[in-house]
């Protein structure tokens, strides 16, 4: 187990290095001079030179990369072109909001997805199963930004129950969480259903029934724990999609999270901020997956060796 964790940690290092190279390249693979792009086509030569100077754009590429990497390791992601505030400060305050949004959506998706998936599996081929699976298919096929707009239309504009914008108060949290979490809930529900059906037909479930175990206990004690094993991986992956999907949700609900920071910075051509924010999301995702992988392995240990 320890060797597995160490091996898995070591494997993550080249991936993280690759991530930094890719993020670094973004700015440097841009056709044309990044300094000109940032300053704008019509900017005076002096401004362009100042930007070139500040970003070290005149150094050889590999030097620039190692500077970038070295600074990033010290949590220095450069400074914003627009307001000269360190990128890290920009990212830090926004990241917490995005993380909150993602975690709440995750909880929403897990609770709803597991419940729906279990009901669907236990009542296979009944009306409830069919309805749940149809709803899940819709949830899966719906763009989260459109769902967000529709929720605003119904619950904010028509009914006035929730605030259509912002983040923090309970009446601001509900709609974005539903908008972002629904697709995940649908995926988890489908996965849980198929995994539960798989487990329910296993020999050990028959053994439990032959022992006289109540059906409810068979489902929740004997089946669910086994069925959760593949679902955990899906949940881990979903978290990444929530981080990325929050870009759209934050835009719809005007939430000042990392996603909105990325969009605004792209539109303002503030590349250091774009770089920093994307790097933070990617690294978070890699670390979350690492954690999921290890916990999956832990859960799965007993089965792997079978």
């Amino acid at each position: 187990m320890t060797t597995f964790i160490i091996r898995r940690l070591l494997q993550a290092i080249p991936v993280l290095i690759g991530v930094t190279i890719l993020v670094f390249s973004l700015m440097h693979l841009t056709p044309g001079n990044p300094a000109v792009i940032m300053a704008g086509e019509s900017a005076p030569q002096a401004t362009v030179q100042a930007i070139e100077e500040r970003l070290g754009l005149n150094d050889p590429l590999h030097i620039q990369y190692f500077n970038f990497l070295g600074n990033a390791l010290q949590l220095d992601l450069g400074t914003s072109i627009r307001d000269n505030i360190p990128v890290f400060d920009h990212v830090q305050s926004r990241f917490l909001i995005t993380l909150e949004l993602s975690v709440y959506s995750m909880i929403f998706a897990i609770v709803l997805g597991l419940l729906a998936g279990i009901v669907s599996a236990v009542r296979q081929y009944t009306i409830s199963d069919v309805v749940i699976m149809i709803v899940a298919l819709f949830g899966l096929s719906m763009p989260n930004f459109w769902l967000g707009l529709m929720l605003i239309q119904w619950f904010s504009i028509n009914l006035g129950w929730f605030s259509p914008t912002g983040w923090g108060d309970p009446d601001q949290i509900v709609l974005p969480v539903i908008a972002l979490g629904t697709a995940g809930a649908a995926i988890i529900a489908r996965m849980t259903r198929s995994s539960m059906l798989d487990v329910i037909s296993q020999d050990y479930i028959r053994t439990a029934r032959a022992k006289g175990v109540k059906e409810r206990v068979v489902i929740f004690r004997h089946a669910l724990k086994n069925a959760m094993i593949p679902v955990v991986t899906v949940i881990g992956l979903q978290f990444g999609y929530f981080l990325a999907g929050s870009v759209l949700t934050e835009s719809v609900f005007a939430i000042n999270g990392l996603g909105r920071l990325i969009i605004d910075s792209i539109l303002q051509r503030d590349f250091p901020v774009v770089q920093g924010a994307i790097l933070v999301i990617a690294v978070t995702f890699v670390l979350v997956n690492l954690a999921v992988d290890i916990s999956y392995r832990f859960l799965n240990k007993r089965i792997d060796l079978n």
Partner: protein
Amino acid sequence: MAVASKERIRDTKPVNPRVKSMKDFYKRLKKNKSALIGFYILVFFFIVSIFGALDANYGFTGISSNATSLTEKLEGPSAAHWFGTDHLGRDIFIRIIHGMYITLGVGFAATFLAGLVGVPLGILAGYYGGWLDTIIMRLMDVLLAFPGILLALAIVSVLGGSTINVTIAIAIGAVPQFARIVRGSTLTTKKLEYVDAIRALGARDGKIIFQHILPNIMSPIIVNTTLFIATAILSAAGLSFLGLGVQPPTPEWGAMLNDGRNYMYQAGHITFFPGMMIVIVVLAFNLFGDGLRDALDPKFKK
């Protein structure tokens, strides 16, 4: 003597198990009602989108998707404008029809490009293994570290927003998914006894890959392609919605949603109809893709 031994080889040539399974596959697919519904919706949409594309570019109906009418702006659905009009008085129904080929086209093109790169990478990694496998898959891992729309967003932020750039950005994001699935299937196929037997008979790698591996891994590729088109359509719409994808006044559905969001208080229908269309198209691909998967992998169906 030489002829005789050659013939013997032909006689004992191992049988590709694919042939029989394809027949079963069609039988199972035909039985799957939801897959058929998805398929029919898609066929219908293709026809409409071809019509829409021709009309948008050659205008034989004489109706323009960009014809503005200040007297008719923000009107709700009516007999004259089935889906209502937007803030410039443009007919939303016409715009949806004229924009359909863009949505479908970006989805197909991005998926096709991703497959074009991802499938060979997956086969190389799976078939040859070793350091080639390690390098390819680590590279894929790096791309996979950017979840969902994020990689496309990063790429578009560099390339700038346009239909072609969005397609490329989404395709790059999808390459690792193809590579992973193809690698897995290649590994499984490589281990099949009949592939071993063919190799023992002295077939060359190229021949094994094209005649034996590729046909056998086609089914996961097809399923994945169908399901990925759905994701690609969602991503493209998302980028356009953010103003980073297909640019107005092109009647792309995501961009139309972006137009409409400022008028939600006065005219909710502007954001309703384009989004609903996205849902139906994506749903159709998902239905069809699910059906394909069930038909190809009966144990999945239960």
